[in-house]
């Protein structure tokens, strides 16, 4: 078995790890880097629970070899809160009861974070469409849409408060 040394920037921190090429990024994050917030729900790219940001874009970490992330930046759910404060998307999920069991939640948070970067004022339909690649079995989605709307309002307030 050959292994490779890879270097990633994970949530802003440089991490070096020796991995077998077949290891999925999700497994390396979870088992080698201790970041268990990224969840494996289906391992065939459909459920979206393992979604992380790779260089700022949402990708399935179950469909990416860790060696492919060598030299790239990865943001996981653990990297969303800043200085101990929940991000607006995280806070929105809490406020609007956008999660129940919490297992799918990290993938939704990552996807919603990207959505609001691209489209700060999405309609409910746009939110539903953007999140259609993330499956949730608990909430029925309505409160998740509410949560993203909450976050969009919060971000708009924050932006208008800025000088």
């Amino acid at each position, binding site marked *: 078995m050959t292994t490779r040394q890879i270097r990633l920037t994970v949530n802003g921190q440089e991490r070096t790890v020796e991995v077998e090429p077949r290891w999925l990024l999700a497994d390396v994050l979870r088992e080698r880097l201790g970041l268990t917030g990224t969840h494996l729900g289906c391992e065939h790219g459909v459920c979206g629970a393992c979604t992380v940001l790779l260089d700022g874009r949402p990708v399935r970490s179950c469909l990416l070899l860790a060696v492919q992330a060598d030299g790239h930046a990865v943001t996981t759910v653990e990297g*969303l809160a800043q200085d101990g404060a929940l991000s607006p998307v995280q806070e929105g999920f809490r406020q609007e009861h956008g999660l129940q069991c919490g297992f799918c939640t990290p993938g939704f948070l990552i996807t919603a974070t990207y959505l609001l970067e691209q489209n700060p004022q999405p309609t409910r339909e746009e939110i539903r469409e953007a999140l259609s690649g993330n499956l949730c079995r608990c909430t029925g989605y309505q409160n998740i849409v509410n949560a993203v709307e909450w976050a969009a309002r919060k971000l708009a307030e924050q932006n208008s408060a800025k000088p």
Partner: protein
Amino acid sequence: MKRFRGSVDKPGLWPRKGGRLSGRGACRFATQVEYIGQRRTRVEDARLVQGQGRYVSDVAWPGQLVMAVVRSTHAHARIRAIDGSEALRSRGVFGVYTARDLGGLNRPMPMGIVDTSFEPALQTPLAADKVRYVGEPVAVVLAEDRYLAEDAVEKVRVDYEPLEPVIDLDEAAADRVLIHEARGSNVLGGFEHTVGAGEAALATADLVVEEVLRIGRVSGQPMEPRGVVARYDAEQGVLEVYLGTQSAHGAKGHLVAMLGLPPEKVRVIAPDVGGGFGVKMGAYPEDILAAYLALTLGRPVKWAGDRLEEFLATNQEREALHRVKLGVQRDGRIVALVDRFLQDCGAYTPMGSLIAHTTAINLAGAYRVPNLYVSYQLVATNKVPVGPYRGAGRPQGHFVIERMLDRAADRLGLSRIEIRRRNLIPPEAMPYDTGLVLRTGDPIAYDTGNFPEGFESLVAALEPRLEERRRAAGRQGRWVGLGVANYVEISAAGGFEGAIVEARPDGTFLVFTGAAAQGQGHRTTLAQVVAERLGVPFESVTVVEGDTALIARGVGTFSSRTMVMAGNAASQAATAMRQELLAAAAKELEVAVEDLEWEAGRIRVRGVPASALTVGEVVQRLLQSQERVRTEAYFSAKGATYGFGSHGVIVEVDPATGGVSLRDYVMVHDGGQVINPLLADGQIIGAAVQGIGTALYEEIRYDPQGQPLNTTYLDYLLPGSAEMPEFELIHQRYAATNNPEGFKGLGEAGIIPSMAVVLSAVEDALAAGGVPAFFAATPVTPEAIFAAMNQGGVSHEAASV
């Protein structure tokens, strides 16, 4: 259109506490705070949204071995031989184990419920000489990691002698091929119930409608697959098992029984559990095997099941075949309902007759059914074993009565709304004895509620929109229809739950309970109950759940039971704690308890503000002479709680493609005394979406050889965000009478009528387009609608493109 997102948007329909409570209400204790009924965000969430949850698959111990399972590739076969030698030589492999290696362990696993009504067919941890479904475990591999373990699984050679499989229910019941030869029949049990004159009463009906209804097989599919991590603590002599389960105490019982350990030497911890929906219950082979191997080898053993295994080896549900007759009078009133049904058990009966029995007692729904006859048979087939999935028979029973009412209305020329009006149980009939009985033997007597009021509020919300929707959609060549259905959620029947309240010297409180959550938010709701009954700030109460070491007895979270059982237990333990602290304070302050008042965490002598103690100080005094300050209570509700509800949905059908869009979905629900409306609404909406899945998207399919055809999320379609509607909720609140707090179960409410209501609405839409249709089976796919269009004799020319 105004969109209601939750109860707060519609305050008029949330009566203030005590406002419309009937029965024994919730306000028996005067306290300063009102946490019960308060819309609160969850204490669980800050961790979960930061990725700090700890699920079973997150648990890792140094030196752990990872288990992977070799599963049967045949639906029905004899095992001639298993050769694990090549697997054993595979890199990183520690061991390969077959039934032979397990010795006495490999005996039938216990049933997940107590059920002595028939002789069950129970699975052994590993198949020894015969496999009965694709996915049945035949061997396990232990290796250093999951990658290496899966490498080895591919190298285990199993020599099968294929046998003819039995997939179809009628065929199985004919016993041409036997699945459990020793039983002599695939029919493992048969039951019947009669209410009133039963089938004989059909003779007096003006019209008898007959249908064969088929409910599809579905899979619960929590987003977290099942998993277990076991380790043996040799120093303490304790086997510690982290398990994704709805019932830590139940699982402990199974481990104790299988492993022969004393109960105090087994600790089961349900950490964060990523959804349950009924499927994370009962004894599963992997749980027993991981625990056994950890115990035997002295090394931690982890099995994190994957999605494929969730399809191949986790209990499934619903599949049943009903032959039904409904007798009605010309005015639509029900005379008698007769249902003979076959309940698919799959290859084994891990949860006994539970689902079939629950189906039977739900047949009357929210209606007066003076005469009823039901008989049902438990039928083995070569498919994944059947166990509860949210609703566990409730949706099936309601599906039968609601579909038959639609059928009868159509035949009588009555509207589907009107026939329901004429049969709903009126409030003056409460309490209403249905003549059916719970598994506990208690009569099923609906205690409180106003069914017509609820149903009319639904009709009033939806009927005016129907024409508007029809006009708008007609311009695009779409057909629009309305479906309505009613239900009664029979929940929290049987068993008990406990709660321990422990006071700490800093004035805060811990609450321990066996009923752990899988997303329901018990740490929040139970804290609301305890804080209110104690009269302390919500923030000072911390609920700890799901650890058998912290509370010796418990049952678990299923059947919408936790708020009724654990909620009342927590209430009683909190009340006892309050009394204990007041008594201690009275002693300390040298006054009578009656002279004390309790406010904002302080206990003081009435009229003497200076003479006061904080709660923490009282606890500190008590701890000078006792080890702990604890109260505990165990609550068992008599009978069940009965929560009424109505669903209505307006759908739009594209007659050219068979595509269905859900437009307006309104739900009425009586949750009794609701603890936290935010969370209650979340339960109801989430359940409704699962029901819509069963109605439109989900079905586990098998080919004639018993090979499952859809075992990925590409082929088995879960409802997605883009297709699900916005729900509007209308609340009723009639407190339950069988528990002091007036709580009613509500976790399964949303799923009960959603199957029936969606089918009804699609038919109504087709009828509006001139295509008479009756859907007797779930799910209603575009293909099924296409078939109905063809059968209805409508050429596709009529369907505008």
